[in-house]
């Protein structure tokens, strides 16, 4: 299945919100650790959940320590695009 940018953002926001402080204002520029009060262990948990949702393995190197929500979205979209290209090549 293919995802639009808005859908990816929505999914990521949903997963991140479950781990963020209840009052936190979540934007694409929010840093997971510094702004949303998510500790590094929970970041790992978020990564695992997103991997399940998008059916992919996210390489840790794509998620820097000071990752923002936007970084996470970008990492997932890079993966999704790579997957699509693979499919296109396969269908040619």
């Amino acid at each position, binding site marked *: 299945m293919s995802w639009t940018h808005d859908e990816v953002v929505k999914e990521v926001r949903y997963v991140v919100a479950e781990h963020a402080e209840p009052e936190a204002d979540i934007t694409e520029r929010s840093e997971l650790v510094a702004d949303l009060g998510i*500790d590094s262990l929970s970041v790992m948990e978020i990564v695992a959940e997103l991997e399940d949702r998008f059916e992919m393995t996210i390489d*840790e*190197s794509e998620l820097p320590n000071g990752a923002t929500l936007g970084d996470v979205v970008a990492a997932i979209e890079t993966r999704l695009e790579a997957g699509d290209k693979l499919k296109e090549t396969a269908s040619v």
Partner: protein
Amino acid sequence: MIDSMRTVVQALEDAAESVHTGFRFIEEAKTSEPFFTYSDVERVTARYGGAMQAMGLKKGDRIALILPNNQDFVFAFLGALRAGIVPVPIYPPAGLRRLGGYLENTLHIVRKSGARVVLTDGTIRRLLGTVQSGATDLQRIQAIEPIRSSRERLEPEKISLDDTCFLQFTSGSTSAPKGVIISHRNIASNVRRFMEEGLEVEAGVDSGVSWLPLYHDMGLIGFVLGPLYYRNTLTYLPPMLFLKRPVRWLETISRLRATISFGPNFAYALCEKRVRDADIERLDLSTWRAAGCGAEPIRASDLRAFADRFAPAGFDHRAMLPCYGMAEATLAISFPRLGEGVRTDTVGAEDLAAELKANAAQPGSGGAIEVVNCGKTFEDHEVAVFDPKDEASEHPLPDRVVGELRFRGPSVTSGYFDEPELTKQAFAGDWLRTGDMGYIIDGDIFICGRQKELIIVNGRNYYPQDLEWEASSIDGVRKGNVIAFGTRRPLDDRERVVVVFETSLTDRDARAAVKNAVGKAVRQATGLSIDDVVDLDAGVLPKTSSGKLRRNETRRLYETGELFERTSARQGDAIGIAKEIVKSQIGYARDALFIKK
């Protein structure tokens, strides 16, 4: 019975007869799980050793290993030993912001150890430019990739029990990392004791699972060298994979019907929190007969919670083994008896503070604290308690009197590499000063805390851990991210007690409420008046590279006022051993990405 008084090299050559047991390496992105019998391991490590000799390394030379991949690390480490080359494990880098600090630390270890070669992977290699230029003995930084396929032959070296096996650099909370000299005799002595007495291992039959980082003694000695002597099969998971999906640790134990696996306290707490009920239904942990816990302070409540939660999966609470050890003791100092589970002693906090006496108290009564029983030391080793000022270890203290725990026996290091003064300070007479405060009852060892960090108010002693534990129980405080210490300014008539905690709350009123609650809780529990409670943003508290709280450093930062200027972004957030590992794994690749640009 296997003769364990052999060098690691001899043990490996002997194990090569085994074509059924060996090492299995699980990697996150791969479905295959390469398995190397000890016969394979013998052959592969000979090539690694040969490759190191081909670099010009000779017996006794040091080689620093910065290898995040488990398979690379195990083969390179054992390969070096076979050539008589002394490996110096170094943890992988930790994030862009702290790269400066990481490089400084790495440079210190490379210099101090006099390493002639640093062996690392291609990605990390690109980050180490300043290390290359700053260490005079260092001849090259070698990438591991070409070594994997090397065909160099190993020139046999004669290795004896008293040769240095490797240097274990420890990040002390008060000083720069020091290289603990571990000889083959140390390894053989300690391995024999924890494998035979501690774990009652059945050679070639018991099997283990480990996600522990291999640059740390519990992972390296406990789960590589120990099993090698007894030819037990070991399965390794990347530390990162465990942190992402803790259930993978338990699934692996379940699937492979493993009998032995260890983790620090936080690992059990993490599983208790993260593993889902549906996953527990699929697990069978009934084969897990030794669930060890060490490397950081142990909370009985965390281990009990784990045992309760996983009882439906067949986990036997009696398998829990809270152990005590340290790098200077090679690894293990004491093990409780197998099959007894977590046992504790409840003592009055009042007597502990006022008289340094651990007097039994009624569980649940006011001012009672629970101390975990870490068991007894091993045959031909001794543990005793002394007054820290007893420089010659002349007067061991009686049972239930708190003092400094000291250890002696063939597992004890001869000292720190190229540090005669620190080595001298580490011993009192012929006893190793552990630096830990504790007491003994009928040979059973109970740890209360680090001696240097005692808070002393009006002649009474308080353990910072107890204050921190109380503060951690308050909602809004980041659990495990609390530091308590005493400080005394020149004009103060007494030590002032300070509690510093991290919080993720941003609302000013909410933070103030949490501060109040912390002060109140600690006051109520200890009877101490708290002079200052400080709230910090997440990630500000200083930690050692292995994630231990740095109390003395926090005190220093508090005294100079720097603590209040620190931000999470500036310092990075080394929170707990786990998080340090996370960073070390996610950090370096990111650094590479940035530095390439």
